[in-house]
């Protein structure tokens, strides 16, 4: 089960030890995260809550290899990603992380099919394999009939479902969801949460979700709180 605060050696899928992140703004040092220790096991649905500016997204970026900590180590599936170069970290993200953003972040000029196909272009797959995987991912999110639609032709909930299809299509090690329901109405938000729950329950996916919404957090198996850079 996921836990925080442990400094003991761990075999968890995601393991953070002594992670800190700070920025320098002018002459002032900002400590966004201090001494974060976190273990997340494979197949868990973990929610991170906290007020704005508490460091939730920063923590997600560090785990997702989008940023590097100023101190501490992050291991994912045995790989110490904090030791990777920028280029190797980019390649690592392609293989291990599926991102879901609050504003969906779909490429507006590409169809749903091509949006979902993007992560597969980084893998050694034939066109036919890519086509099959994209079709499967879109079927999982219930949008098999929206292949050729551009994002602007889809509702917010549908766009987020396309984003989830894009996140799962390359079968990553885990999904990082940054406020995935933050821009959706209640009905669509429930659909998205149900889908994430389904991915964990049926497909054994590991999901880390940042949210402000207690109802969203309630769908997770474990909820941690971040406040002033400290995780509890």
């Amino acid at each position: 089960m996921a836990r925080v605060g442990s400094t003991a050696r761990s075999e968890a899928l995601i393991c953070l030890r002594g992670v800190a992140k700070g920025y320098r703004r002018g002459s002032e040092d900002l400590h966004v995260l201090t001494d974060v220790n976190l273990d997340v096991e494979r197949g868990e649905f973990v929610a991170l809550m906290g007020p704005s500016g508490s460091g939730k997204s920063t923590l997600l970026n560090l785990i997702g290899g989008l940023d590097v900590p100023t101190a501490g180590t992050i291991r994912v599936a045995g790989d110490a990603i904090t030791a990777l170069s920028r280029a190797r970290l980019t390649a690592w993200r392609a293989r291990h992380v599926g991102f879901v953003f609050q504003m969906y972040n779909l490429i507006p000029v590409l169809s749903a099919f091509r949006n979902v196909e993007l992560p597969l272009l980084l893998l050694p797959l034939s066109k036919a394999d890519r086509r099959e995987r994209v079709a499967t991912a879109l079927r999982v999110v219930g949008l098999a009939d929206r292949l050729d639609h551009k994002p602007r032709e889809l509702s917010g909930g549908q766009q987020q479902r396309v984003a989830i299809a894009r996140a799962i299509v390359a079968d990553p090690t885990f999904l990082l969801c940054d406020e995935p329901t933050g821009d959706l109405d209640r009905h669509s938000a429930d659909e998205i949460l149900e889908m994430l729950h389904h991915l964990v329950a049926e497909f054994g996916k590991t999901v880390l979700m940042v949210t402000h919404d207690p109802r969203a957090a309630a769908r997770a198996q474990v909820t941690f709180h971040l406040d002033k850079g400290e995780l509890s």
Partner: protein
Amino acid sequence: MALPLVYSIESLRARWRSSLVAVAGIAGSVAVFVAMLALARGFELALVSSGSPDNALVRRAGATSEMDSVLDVEELRVLQDAPEVARDARGPLVSGEIVVLVALPLRQAGTEANVMVRGVTARALDVHGGVRVAEGRMLTPGTAEVVVGRYARNSYAGLDLGASVRLGGTPFTIVGFLDAGGSAFDSEIWADEAVVGPAYQRPRGYYQSAAARLVARDALGALRERVASDPRMRHQVDRETEYYAKASQAMRGMILSLGALVAAVMGVGAVCGALNTLYSAVAERARELATIRALGFGGGAVVIAIVAESLLLAAAGGVLGALLAWPLDGLTTSTLNFQTFSHVAFAFRVTPDLLALGFGFALAMGAVGGLPPALRAVRVPVAVALRDL
């Protein structure tokens, strides 16, 4: 791994208005660039095609053109007797010639311009193989008759068949028109040297140059040596094509320099247009570019995608510019040939290699306009770019 080309194409389509402006800027630059090259090429071809590789042109040593050269009848005879010079049933294929400049009114502007009047011998058409009488007939030796090149006919007022033109105070009758295949001879008036020379107080028995048909193309060296070693001769022997190529160099260089300047100024404008389009595109798409990098595409893939957009704009501009320049092919214009101070008409020559150069120029503008915005797009760390959205 690169992003699919469809991403670049669709991104351009999504911003078609600003894309069109950039394409138009590049097209304009390419059109001007190709037009200038076509102008220089046309001028060069007009002069070079005046000469034949089978002919030698003999001028006084040190003369920069036919205008400041001299050759007397004895010296002409040395040439006529040279074994390297071809001959037919009528004798050696050598044409001693004089040139004079005559101011005539231009048909369109009404102002006067210098036309070159070439005094020729009866062998002129035999030696200058590319020249033929297209209309009327060849002048009769010993008479005050002239034949007029087709560009001269179109450029100057009053040069009609049967009309009279005053040369050195003597009226000459126009009896025919020449077609010299677009060469400089098309801008000339030909008269009998024995008639037109005295009209300009030229001493009898003196020519300015001689064109001689060689027995073989490689006989030039032998003729050159013969002339150099003959104590009676103080003349230089050039292959006719080389003489005309040299004669075109100064003017061609000037056209190219001016053309390069205009094209460069327009090119800078077009590059700024492309830069502006792509900088704003990159700014507008900060979210999607950061997302693409978050998904695992490297900075190189993003740079390639944006430069590809720029190159697509440039390619479209290159094709459009080439299409704009294409109709100029064959269009005649005229200029002063500073070598002879005569007016030379010539046609724009838009050739495939010039179009390819124009297209290359467009792509170069695209690369220069695309790279800085592309580099800016990947300079910001992904986490920062995503956070700033």
